[in-house]
């Protein structure tokens, strides 16, 4: 299809407004272009405006105050915004070209922001990519460029009722084969459901793709140009997911809103759930500190045919193209990824360091629960990094729901996912 004159006439009005408002249409889409000038070693200067979300936004000023000691001429100004719907705000900022210098972004969203052309690539030599967990570094790339620096990571592990397991005389499952019997044993101790699984609410895919990965599936080809949901491995994973419902181990009507599972877990009606490092605090809120100490066990996910891969999430730092203090922002980000700063941040926030070296000392090294996360992080993977992922993941959620509710076979669901994902494409061909 070629651009027609008519469309120009129709859209001309829209363009006119943009021009009238003083905004040129200079947006360079996509990328592959060169990275910006390297960042020197001198201390940062001037005001550095950053956005950070949720708890991170609340705690960051304390950490930023320490940055000032080493960089007396710089001042980090943190604007705290909520996680919910923050993506719209970042997109708005880019569209209106009125951005702060840097922002924290969720690792799953980075590709989308990068595709708008509003982010700067990470300057060469700023950080050593191999110092981060592989899965985290993987989710900072888009179309051959690197657009973010991993700050903290999270991954999901198995939380189970230790007391029920003890009473049943079973220990945490290591493989898929032990998974079902373990959960059934907990159910015999009085739990109505063995395991809480997502059944179609937004982002259910984060809980279901790991089953496919564990069976050995890779969801895109090597150069990320095509989706490959139609493989025997993906099918094996999805069938395994389905088996939890057919064996009545999991409810077909999983939690709809956040915070629904914790009371059930505390009440003992659900014996296990898969969740991230934030879960401990939520369980303490719902059941008290003693409940967590005495009754909650944590284990890595059971291994399938290939691996025990889990989903990796977390936060990355990015710098906007329209940043006023680009050098200062990159210097701040470089400082944030120093191992001892990463440890300080863990102390302040409980977030897990993205830099592997930070785990070699103190509590991060010795705590048994953290050790489970550390081990899980080695194999954790991000979702595919394509700009259309938001739309494709919505297709996944819808098809996952059909499998969970028993209205579609896993095979038919995967066929539809493959067809729709291929039709939507990777967003790069345009």
């Amino acid at each position, binding site marked *: 299809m070629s651009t027609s004159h008519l469309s120009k006439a129709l859209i001309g009005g829209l363009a006119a407004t943009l021009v009238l408002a003083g*905004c040129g249409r200079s947006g360079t889409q996509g990328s592959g272009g060169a990275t910006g000038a390297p960042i020197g070693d001198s201390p940062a200067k001037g005001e550095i405006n950053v956005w950070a979300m949720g708890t991170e936004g609340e705690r960051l000023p304390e950490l930023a105050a320490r940055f000032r000691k080493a960089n007396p001429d710089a001042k980090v100004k943190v604007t705290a915004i909520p996680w919910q719907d923050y993506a719209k705000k970042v997109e708005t900022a880019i569209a209106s070209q009125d951005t702060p210098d840097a922002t924290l972004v969720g690792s799953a969203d980075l590709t989308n922001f990068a595709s708008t052309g509003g982010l700067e690539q990470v300057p060469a030599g700023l950080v050593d990519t191999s110092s981060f967990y592989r899965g985290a570094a993987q989710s900072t790339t888009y179309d051959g460029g690197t657009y973010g620096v991993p700050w903290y990571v999270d991954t999901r592990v198995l939380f189970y009722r230790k007391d029920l397991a003890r009473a049943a005389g079973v220990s945490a499952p290591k493989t898929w084969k032990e998974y079902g019997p373990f959960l059934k044993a907990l159910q015999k101790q009085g739990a109505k459901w063995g395991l809480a699984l997502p059944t179609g609410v937004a982002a259910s895919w984060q809980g279901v793709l790991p089953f496919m990965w564990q069976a050995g599936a890779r969801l895109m080809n090597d150069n990320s140009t095509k989706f490959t949901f139609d493989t025997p491995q993906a099918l094996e994973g999805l069938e395994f997911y389905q088996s939890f419902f057919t064996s009545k181990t999991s409810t077909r009507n999983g939690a709809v809103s956040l915070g629904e599972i914790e009371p059930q877990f505390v009440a003992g009606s659900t014996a296990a759930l898969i969740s991230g490092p934030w879960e401990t605090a939520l369980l303490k809120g719902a059941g008290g500190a003693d409940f967590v100490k005495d009754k909650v066990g944590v284990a890595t996910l059971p291994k399938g045919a290939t691996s025990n891969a889990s989903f990796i999430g977390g936060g990355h730092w990015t710098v906007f193209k329209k940043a006023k203090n680009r050098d200062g922002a990159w210097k701040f980000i470089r400082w944030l990824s120093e191992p001892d700063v990463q440890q300080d941040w863990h102390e302040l926030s409980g977030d897990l360091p993205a830099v592997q070296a930070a785990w070699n000392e103190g509590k991060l090294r010795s705590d048994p629960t953290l050790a489970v996360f550390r081990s899980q992080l080695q194999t954790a993977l991000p979702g595919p990094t394509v700009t259309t992922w*938001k739309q494709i993941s919505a297709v996944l959620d819808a098809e996952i729901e059909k499998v969970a509710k028993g209205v579609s076979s896993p095979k038919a669901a995967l066929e539809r996912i493959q067809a729709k994902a291929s039709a939507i494409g990777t967003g790069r061909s345009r």
Partner: protein
Amino acid sequence: MTTATSLEPVRERSSAGRPTQRSRRGSGHLRRTVVAWAFCSPFVLLFATFGIWPVFSSLSMSVTDITSRDVQTPFSVNFVGLENYTALFGDPTFVRAAVNTLYFVAVGIPLTMVLSLAVAVALNSGIQRAKGLFRVAYFAPVVTSIVAVAVVWRYLYKPDGMINSVLSVVGISGPDWLNDPNWSMPALILMAVWRHFGIPMVIFLAGLQSIPPELHEAAVVDGASRWRAFRSVTLPLLRPTTLVVAILLSISYLQFFEEPFVMTSGGPLDSTTSISYYAYQQFGFGNYGLASAASYVLVTAIALLSLLQFRIFRARA
């Protein structure tokens, strides 16, 4: 524009009802035009910028393949004609959304109207005591924010929530409302009726109060039953009021969005996805062309339904 003609009768009637000023001289007409436009100017300026312009803009988007990635370079998009519209009707999710919207409208509007009329009649004729209290209480849901009440309703609809515990008192074991694709829509309709029926109730009350009770009484004296009197005297006189209520409700119910947005995210299994919600989702995915097309399907539906209601109620009035 077809949408304008649907409301034409109002305009025709209104201008016919009073003496025109055509007898005035031409120069006076020019002066009046200047004065009138001066009076309208603040409104016209804002209305053109934030009302008309976005409509024009989204209409042109609906015939292109514009996405969020094109906002900074709107010249680079392709004209695709009616492709977005054909794509919509080829998408099972959209078809489902259209069916759901019709379901919501077809059940929700009559239910709201019957209920609000019944309460209005009860308040108007049957009782003297505590009338004000009832009126205020029944109207209260109208003024509350949906964001605030959504959390409450999610709790009420839980399998072991308040609604099911009330049902179990009378021996009914209630469904898992929001998780059951067959019951999710009835649940949202119930919530929508709760939220909206205060407005038609008050409009019906005003309509009823303008009917002289003598007419009704006369019919009863003539031997008609109360129900017959209501049907043959009150209802016909309420027809203009009913038209207003029907149009207000169809405009707001066809836009069915807030309930699925805060309660179900369109689920389970797309059972509560509406056209508005579908359009909003496509905006979220950055498919501006498709989203605009979906919203114009909705505009057409609203225009057609309003026109239809005018025909029905006008013809009989």
